[in-house]
């Protein structure tokens, strides 16, 4: 990465030459040797060049297409510079040196998303009257966004086509449910409830399965209720972004924006470090909520309350009393961590759920632990500020969107009631999940509806940690909780840490341990898990990575054939897909009324179908090595001209079912 800049050339046009610097709202250089700041003049000339390119291209455009340019990609021999007009007159530019492996959509998506994150938090740039204030906010959000990506650039590339190319859409969960009773329950009991009715604008419920590769289709937004929630893509993508960045560590700290990544040095203890290498698979499901807000907030609180830190016993007793006194949620939460080791009898009693961000958080915590203030757009209204609370149940995440002036959220009883109702709804939801595995296994699909912005996609989600796992040389990442960090460091040092192992395995009633909250489990040697097996597979096939050759696989394989691909192959496949997809998206066509279908058959086994139309883009991925004789014969008999129908019975059945569902 080279630099990121935000500028508004319109300012320059008004000002005198000496005021040229005013157009530059933000310039951040990612260069390692940052001791020497880039001279102002150099920054301005670069911005001038980018703007020059923009105008240069402009002059070759047809009058009617002028102003429709969304972004410009400038490729140099080694570097590339991408400029996006994020708001009328406001541009963002990004320079990168990436060896041209990836399409520019990868960066465009990040640029736009960093803007959207900024916009959710701070509103539009043009609303800022004070340039200095705007620059500060941009520094906070945009630079923060990109700094994280700089630390884990894999996060940029380990994305599926759906999130890269359809960045203005949002992925929906295709969890199969027998009935919709839980939805009406939520509607009647929570949304239309006389207490909430005036204040609760909407609720968005996400399912974020922790094993994304196996259940990619289930990942995403399950339900939102307001009819025209225009900011839904931005909000959803913000959640997905946090999830991809912090993965299994998605917690209230993350949601509160109080966590940043930094490269952990060796001088640090292992505590607080987010270890990504060789985690046993049994933990994959558990890691997400391990470090939810309560323990950490209580740690902090205990600190101030207890006043001295004479020993671990004091601390623990303090925590315990807090836990029991505060709410039952927290204690359930703690036990969750140890659930894999306990028997099933206790499971039914302790199902984890509760608020991640809510006014129930302790006073001592910053405001963002009590609510998030976001600017959102509903229907055609002007964007307004809302207060967002976050709640979880297992791997479901629920976002409550309250009107800003709704004071009820400060009433603990009200929140408790909502918690209970939502818990009931989630139990209903769980009960209606269709568990039998009749998922389409032989192909992966992605559908983007351009009107509703919905994305349905079963392409396996890439976890960049998968990729990182084979780069042992990398430094482990460390999660730093701003402000609370020092306390935590102190708390987790010494005896406390050494006691950790026992506290995890033995003492269920010991209460939340501070270490547990931020610390990933110790690496286990047992290679029993499927996840570890995956790594071995990866190493075995590394030689083939270049060719990306698919193999004929046994029919018994569940999930899509892509699931069995190594991360590296999957990554490469997605890069390839993005390239093919961008290839087909051209402005050369008449804008309305044309559907183009394309079907590609490569000799490495990939069968790639893509169709674009004004309303919908569809892509389907198959492994044609897997087509048996029967399918082939069936395809030959097909009389339909549609290329989609020639993909085989399984695709046809899926498509027809989908079409029926839509109607």
């Amino acid at each position, binding site marked *: 990465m080279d630099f990121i800049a935000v500028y508004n050339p319109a300012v*320059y*046009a008004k000002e005198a030459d000496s005021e040229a610097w005013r157009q530059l709202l933000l310039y951040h250089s990612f260069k390692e040797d940052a001791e020497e700041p880039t001279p102002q003049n150099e920054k301005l000339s670069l911005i*001038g*060049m980018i*703007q*020059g*390119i923009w*105008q*240069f*291209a402009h*002059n*070759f*455009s*047809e*009058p009617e*297409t002028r102003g*429709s*340019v969304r*972004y*410009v*990609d*400038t*490729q*140099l*021999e080694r*570097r590339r510079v991408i400029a996006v007009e994020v708001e009328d007159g406001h541009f963002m530019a990004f320079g990168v040196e990436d060896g041209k492996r990836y399409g*520019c959509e990868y960066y465009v998506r990040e640029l736009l998303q960093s803007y959207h994150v900024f916009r959710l938090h701070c509103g539009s740039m043009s609303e800022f009257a004070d340039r200095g204030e705007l620059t500060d906010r941009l520094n906070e959000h945009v630079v923060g966004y990109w700094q994280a990506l700089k630390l884990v650039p894999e996060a940029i590339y380990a994305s599926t086509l759906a999130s890269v190319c359809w960045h203005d859409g949002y992925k929906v969960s295709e969890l199969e449910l027998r009935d919709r009773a839980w939805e009406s329950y939520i509607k009647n009991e929570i949304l239309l409830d006389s207490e909430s009715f005036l204040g609760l604008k909407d609720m968005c419920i996400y399912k974020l399965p922790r094993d994304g590769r196996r259940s990619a289709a289930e990942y995403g937004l399950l339900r939102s209720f307001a009819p025209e929630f225009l900011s839904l893509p931005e909000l959803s993508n913000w959640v997905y972004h946090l999830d991809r960045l912090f993965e299994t560590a998605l917690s209230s700290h993350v949601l509160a924006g109080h966590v940043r990544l930094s490269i952990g040095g060796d001088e640090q203890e292992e505590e607080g470090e987010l270890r990504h290498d060789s985690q046993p698979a049994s933990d994959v499901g558990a890691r997400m909520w391990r470090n939810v807000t309560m323990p950490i907030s209580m740690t902090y609180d205990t600190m101030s309350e207890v006043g001295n830190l004479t020993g671990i016993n004091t601390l623990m007793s303090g925590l315990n009393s807090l836990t029991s006194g505060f709410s039952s949620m927290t204690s359930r939460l703690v036990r969750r961590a140890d659930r894999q080791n306990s028997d099933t009898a206790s499971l039914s009693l302790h199902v984890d759920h509760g608020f991640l961000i809510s006014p129930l958080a302790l006073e001592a915590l910053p405001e963002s632990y009590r609510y998030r203030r976001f600017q959102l757009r509903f229907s055609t209204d002007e964007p307004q500020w809302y207060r967002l609370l976050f709640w979880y149940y297992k791997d479901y995440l629920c976002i409550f969107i309250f009107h800003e002036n709704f004071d009820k959220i400060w009433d603990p009883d009200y929140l408790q009631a909502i918690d209970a109702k939502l818990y009931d709804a989630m139990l209903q939801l769980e009960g209606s999940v269709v568990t039998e595995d009749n998922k389409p296994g032989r192909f992966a699909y992605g559908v983007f509806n351009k*009107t509703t912005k919905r994305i349905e996609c079963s392409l396996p989600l890439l976890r960049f940690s998968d990729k990182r796992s084979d780069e042992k040389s990398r430094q482990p990442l460390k999660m730093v909780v701003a402000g609370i960090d020092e306390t935590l460091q102190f708390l987790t040092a010494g005896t406390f840490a050494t006691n950790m192992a026992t506290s995890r395995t033995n003492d269920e009633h010991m209460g939340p341990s501070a270490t547990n909250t931020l610390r990933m489990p110790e690496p286990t040697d047992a290679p029993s898990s499927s996840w570890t097996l995956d790594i071995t597979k990866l190493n075995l096939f590394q030689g083939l990575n270049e060719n990306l050759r698919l193999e004929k696989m046994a029919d018994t394989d569940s999930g899509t054939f892509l699931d069995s691909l190594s991360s590296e192959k999957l990554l490469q496949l997605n890069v390839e897909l993005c*390239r093919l997809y961008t*290839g*087909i*998206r*051209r*402005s*050369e*066509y*008449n*804008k*309305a*009324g*044309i*559907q*183009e*279908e*394309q*079907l*590609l*058959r*490569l*000799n*490495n086994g990939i069968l790639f179908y893509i169709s674009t*139309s004004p*309303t919908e883009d569809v892509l389907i991925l198959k492994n044609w090595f897997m087509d048996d004789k029967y399918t082939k014969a069936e395809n030959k*008999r*097909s*009389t*339909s*001209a549609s*290329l989609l129908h*020639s993909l085989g019975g399984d695709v046809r059945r899926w498509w027809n079912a989908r079409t029926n569902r839509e109607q």
Partner: protein
Amino acid sequence: MSTSGSRDSASTRESARETRAGPQALPLGSVVSLSSMRSASPTHAPWVAKPTTSVDLTNHFMEVAARGGEEERSLASPGEEMQYELAHSMKAAPALPRELPSPFRAAGGRGALPQEKQFFVLTAAGKPIYSMHGPEELVMGLMGIAHTLLNYFELDGPRERLRTITTYDAHGVLQRFAFLRKKHVVLLAMTTRNEAEAELQQQLDLLYSYLVSSLSLRQMSRLFERANFDLRSFLTESDFHNLDQLCRAMCDGTHLGWTLGALECITLKHSVRQRINSIMLRATRGLAVGTLLYGMIVAPDHRLVSVLRPKGHTLHTTDLQLLFSMVENQLQLLHSSQEVWVPLCFPKFNGNGFLYCYIKFLPTDTDSASNETTLEGNMHIKPTLILISPQKSSFYDLHTCASEILDNLAVAGIMPHITAPSRFTINDIPAPLVHHFIYKSKKYVQYVMPETSSTTDWSTLMKYYSHLRSNALDSHGNPLSENVVAFARWCASSGQVQVEYCDSSEELQVEDQPSSIFSESFVEESLNMTGLSWITPSFELYLLCNNGEIPKAVVMKSARNVVGWCSRNGHKLFVSEGAVF
């Protein structure tokens, strides 16, 4: 020898470049008169050669653009008149229904510069050399900015240079700019079409190769020793005319071979081709060793009949294409009784020196036939015999050799095969529902295609092919994998979807009103086109079916039949060896 005068003048082309615009440059000048005074003395531009780092491009730019807009095409390019006449004459023909419905956006032409394609050539110091179209003032401003951009990024290091700029709108790629940086000149291509960077680079390379073929590298190096040299004063009108023709041909897709990187040849019985070869070989026996480097007989429309070549040597396709285009653009008014002796640099063969080409048109039954236009929009290019020598003085030897070849061809009764070759039609092949195809043999670097139906709109056909081709290639112009089969289908979205679409968003409806009217006409035509591209290590096949519902299996079957037919008839379709001496 009626044309010895022209031979002499042409043979001194290299040394007499400055004075060649004079009347003695007869054969070349006759076509040149069409072109306007493009090489009028260039005005000095103050913006050149200042690699400043902090320039206010925007403001300068807007001014130029505004001024440019006011002037109504102050500089009509020479090809345009001809193009207009051509288009006019084509319109005069009874209106035929277009058999190929087109999903593509109609070409724009409003405003000062908007075009589907644009080419710029400027010196490394930023002085304009050539622009395909646009008012001069605007073009100069744009070139200035292009030059500033190029220089700015080169400041970052010797290996850093600007390659492409791509703009995107909500629907995908809007424009693509590609830059080709050579030692003395910089070339820029802009396209709003579906062309990959590799394709644009190929086109720029052809333009550059033309400059080299006309000047030779050695001469260019010498000329550019003078700082701030203005090449425009050195290039002749015919050079500009040729550049215009090259650009135009690249825009219109008239020379399929340029994009495919292959030559087309005529279909001949193997025995006939053998006889032509032996006639050519016999005629060259009398020549001293080293007199003849290469020879070929070319049928109308640049279709190769046969080649005469030394063992182990071939000429690069680009070199041949430049030669053919020179013949096409400069010598068409030459009568078949005349002959030309012209020095030409073959950039891919040796960019530093010249070879000498003996060119003679073959006698056709009626010379008036040359006025006919083909479907591709070309003038019918006359059948030609070309002999290439490295020696400046071997005109008379080659003249004798050529006469013998022509005489013997006439005696053997082969001439009609060459002057009026037939194309096979799509009906000759058991490939049901196929409208048209292109089959390229990678081994011979040659392609064949059936007779184009009289109702086919050539440029639409070419756009389809361009899409089919790019479907199977990556951005570097290489096949996506060793074997690729890519189907493509274009159809009008169903009416129901259309209505939904319009209802769903009022904004969209307003914005897209003109095009949605347009799309209704598609519904009437019920666009439903299927095509296929199939690339293997030995061949490339691009195939377009008739409009209508055609199942994939049928398309594939027809494609297999085409491939089978082409490989079975390889001897007839392709010049395999040629006459090797």
